[in-house]
């Protein structure tokens, strides 16, 4: 039960942190923000690795492996496409893109 309560603490506090961080993001960044956040939601890849990799075989492993593929597409594609978009953003005065 202690595990549960601890998880709940993390969940509630992380929600608050998320709200505070995102609230003031300028509209111009909303799409990259969403696709970046989207890549982060692929964090379930960690869980997928654990359930697919425990060597038990059977249904659980098969589902886990499917989850590994799904989540990896999400993570890799999400971060790459976000970077591709952010590359294009530049200010009025600097001619070459930033970073």
């Amino acid at each position, binding site marked *: 039960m202690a595990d549960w309560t601890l998880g709940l603490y993390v969940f509630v506090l992380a929600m608050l942190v998320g709200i505070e961080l995102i609230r003031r993001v300028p509209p111009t960044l909303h799409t990259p923000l969403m696709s970046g956040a989207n890549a982060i939601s692929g964090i379930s890849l960690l869980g997928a*690795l654990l359930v697919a990799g425990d060597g038990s075989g059977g249904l659980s492993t098969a589902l886990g492996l499917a989850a590994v593929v799904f989540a990896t597409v999400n993570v890799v594609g999400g971060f790459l496409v976000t970077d591709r978009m952010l590359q294009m953003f530049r200010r009025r005065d600097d001619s070459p893109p930033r970073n």
Partner: protein
Amino acid sequence: MPPFALDLAYITAGLLLVLGLKALGSPDTARRGNAMAAGAMLLAIVATLLDRAIVSHGTLAVGLITGAILGALLARLVRMTAMPQLVAVFNGLGGGASALVAGAELLGPGHSGPGAGAAVAGAIGILVGSVTFSGSVIAFGKLQGFVPSRPLLFPLRKVVSAVLLAALLAGAVWMGLGHTEPEVIFAMAAVAFLLGILLVIPIGGADMPVVVSLLNSYSGLAAAAAGFVLGNPLLILAGALVGAAGLILTRLMCRAMNRSLANVAFGAFGGGDAGPSAEAGDRTVRRSNAEEVALLLGYASRVVIVPGYGLAVAQAQHETKKLTDLLVARGVEVVFAIHPVAGRMPGHMNVLLAEADLPWDLLLDLDEVNPAMERTDVVVVVGANDVVNPDARDPASAIAGMPIVEADLARSVVVIKRSLSTGFAGIDNPLFYLDRTLMLFSDARQAMADLAREVRELQ
């Protein structure tokens, strides 16, 4: 790898995720923020692979490499106009992965019986993850155009959806009572899959920014639920962050249309069944041409361009950039007024204009652009309609209260449009009939190219 080392890696990854998300929120640091978040993910993945519980590294490598190649290809090949579709696909995969993880963990060996808490969390993960998956598939179909983007209504849809949701909640309680047999888990996933379809299919194409934001939030919540099943705090942390981000964007999108989430979900807005207003016929518009408009623009001191989705559909971004450069070279101040729902997802129009190399600090939101409207010489509305409709100020209008670009307050208005058709809201726009409004009936791309040519010829 000793357990404390894994915990240490997870804590570091969590910290990097939060800092990365913070940096993503500011244009100057956004790229670094994204890289930090990606680094955090890589660290967490490597640490997990070194965990003693993992034995079949070969199988995992196949899955990881397959996924990475697919993801990289999608990210590389997608066109910026198709970004909402891609985000929908990624949302769906993320949600689907979380549902699979939750299900697999409950079905896995070593569970003589998961605790009641883990079982309920698993049920929620399967529910939210599956809804995200199928909802995203439908959203993708609507954005891509192979599912009709108009709201597909069917009788009793609210009742059917409510019954399915009630069944799922009952199933979650049932699983909490210790019934985590494969049949129960698969039944939950199947019903949730159906619910996801039913929830998105009645929603019209114009409301997609809200749907994409909401599914983004769900994909985060599903990951957090999977974290509860596995007892993994990093999943809970990251999932909650994404859940919060999606909720905020959902709220912003709803506010930009002045509608509640319930109204978006069940209102079936944008049906297109409301025909053009009857009074449209009795009023006249002032038809103009590129030469006249170019003259107006070339000798203005301040021009505001209001791009709508029609501009993106016509692929007119690069012509718009050329026109902007020519005007700026003549000493004209040019800015863009970006309505929050100008694109098909939050901030979409900004990305499309950034792709055409327009600097982001020329792109202003409503709060920045409206106060200066009265000292603006010309407002050019390109492929936008409802977002400049002054009727939004009229409490009796269908779009009453929707925040708008106050184009009608400018000294003169140019509307570039293919015809006098109505917008998504299916209502007439009085802006078109003002004395100081010039209508340029043309394809957006053609019009922008013509205007650039004419401006170049001005002395």
